[in-house]
């Protein structure tokens, strides 16, 4: 009798421990969710007041940013457009190069070349952004000044070139993975019908990996729009409307460059810029997930 109740007690205790541990793991599992919530809530709470005070239209479509002037104006259209142009430019240069490289690496390269290139691409991905910024500052900026004969080489063009190099590794890695996942039968069938290797790769393999390649491009867009340090070092950092040889400021660099000395409404406006950037990123993430999902579904 006594023994049995002791046993039951033990089992109860065990159950309690099990439930407790389950709870602990549940909490650990939810940390990512709570981090996302934390970031979202903080950005929204600190970003909304300035937008309210300035007015949404004035804030988003105002053409002048003069945060420290006597009559300060907070229009972030220059930053938004710069970010969009800069990203578009980087994609325009980076995607074709990355795409061609990844088709070669995934389909045609001999193993030795492939291994070497893989580590080269990993190295490119591992180089910190400040190092890109440094090289851009000392090579690209003077180079642009000399070649195009403009007074200052720190410009949108320099930022575009740096960004297109920085997004290369992500584009190459994701598209190589997508291309390698294309079923061999597709290619064999195409080859058996008399298509040459190149025709097969570009007209059979690439179309069937297109969701993955699209995901790679979207990932590149995300990287480019979120990059701050490298861009800050080469883009000149003046709040102009974007022009190829104009000294410009991106959404990211607008936050980074004024944060340390800002106060009051100016500081709140910086948080609002971060909120706008965050919304952009969320949109891009959703697109990325959409393509990734489609690729998974398409291949299974």
């Amino acid at each position, binding site marked *: 009798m006594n023994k049995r109740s002791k046993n039951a007690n033990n089992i109860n205790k065990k159950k309690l*421990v099990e439930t407790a541990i*389950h709870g602990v793991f*549940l909490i*650990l*599992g*939810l*940390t*990512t*969710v709570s*981090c*996302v919530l*934390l970031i979202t809530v*903080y*950005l929204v709470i600190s970003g909304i007041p300035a937008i309210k005070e300035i007015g949404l239209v004035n804030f988003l479509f105002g053409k002048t940013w003069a945060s420290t002037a006597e009559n300060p104006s907070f229009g972030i259209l220059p930053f938004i457009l710069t970010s969009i142009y800069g990203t578009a430019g980087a994609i325009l240069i980076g995607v074709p190069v990355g795409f*061609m*490289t990844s088709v*070669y690496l995934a389909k045609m*390269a001999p193993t030795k070349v492939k291994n070497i*290139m893989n*580590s*080269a*691409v*990993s*190295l*490119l991905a*591992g*180089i*910190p*952004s*400040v*190092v890109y*910024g*440094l*090289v851009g*500052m000392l*090579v690209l900026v003077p180079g642009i000044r000399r070649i195009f004969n403009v007074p200052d080489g720190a410009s949108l063009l320099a930022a575009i070139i740096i960004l297109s190099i920085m997004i290369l590794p992500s584009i*190459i890695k994701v598209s190589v993975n997508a291309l390698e996942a294309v079923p061999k039968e597709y290619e064999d069938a195409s080859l058996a019908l008399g298509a*040459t290797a*190149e*025709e097969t790769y*570009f007209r059979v393999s690439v179309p069937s990996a297109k969701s993955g390649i699209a995901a790679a491009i979207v990932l590149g867009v*995300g990287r480019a729009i*979120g990059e*701050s*340090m490298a861009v800050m*070092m080469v883009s000149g950092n003046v709040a102009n409307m974007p022009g190829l040889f104009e000294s410009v400021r991106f959404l*990211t660099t607008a*936050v*980074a460059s004024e*944060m*340390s000395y800002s106060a009051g409404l100016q500081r709140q406006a910086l*948080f609002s810029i971060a909120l706008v*950037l*965050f919304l952009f*990123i*969320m949109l*891009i*993430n959703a697109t*990325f*997930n959409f393509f990734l999902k489609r690729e998974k579904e398409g291949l299974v």
Partner: protein
Amino acid sequence: MIKEKLSFKRRFYIVIMRALMYICTSLTACLVLALVVYLLIKGIPNLSWEFLTSSPSYLTGRIGILPDILNTIYIMIAALIVVIPLGIGSAVYLTEYAKNKRIVSIIEYAAETLSGIPSIIYGLVGMLFFCQFLGMQTSLLAGALTLCIMNLPTIMRTTQESLKTVPSSYREGAFGLGASRWRVIRTVVLPGCVDGVITGCILSIGRILGESAALLFTAGFAHTLNGFVDGLGSSGSSLTVALYVYAKEQGEFGVAFAIATILLLLSFMINLAAELTQRFFRRKKTI
């Protein structure tokens, strides 16, 4: 032989595509090579033993980066100590406990979102939350915690991948012997995820090493030499932040290049380590 039969249009297509592939691949290769060579040429002359092992002094005009190296290491240690249990825990929850598909997809979506958020936003939120709300001021600890959030998805994903490779027959066997869930996790599942954790750590170390924007506002720029415990409480610059400050604000390009060379070598070593460990564990698994 076959080529003669092909029409001009097809031959043209082949030649163009081939040429484009070669050009683009060699462009990428040259880019990496040029970058590495340029950094080494500019950086190595500025490297010296004294540079690596002393702290900067305004009195003698000496520039040393020992504090920055130590700060980087402190941040790494602190961030990894916090992020490893969190990452393993959430991976274990996802693969072993979670039955509700919706929770799983929410957590995975959150992880995707976290890995897409730009570092400047992490820096901003880290500053607001850790430095101001929790009252840590600009300190290495605040920086480390910010980086911890950044690296959580990495550790979680690599651990999850390695947990998936633990055969479910092991778990079923253990359950069949009457083991409780926690016991199964402790004795069967967790030993199987060591490779994922190590890979995740290496990737995170690489990311922490290269991070700058998130640290600028959370960890600060000081160059003082500190011990681990004092260091965590005070502001200090990591190698990347030091590079930025030396290059952009002080115009000390020699120092900046020396730091860049160190960063380049370190990230090369980290890549190598990641590859070697992956190969090592793969071989172990196939045996």
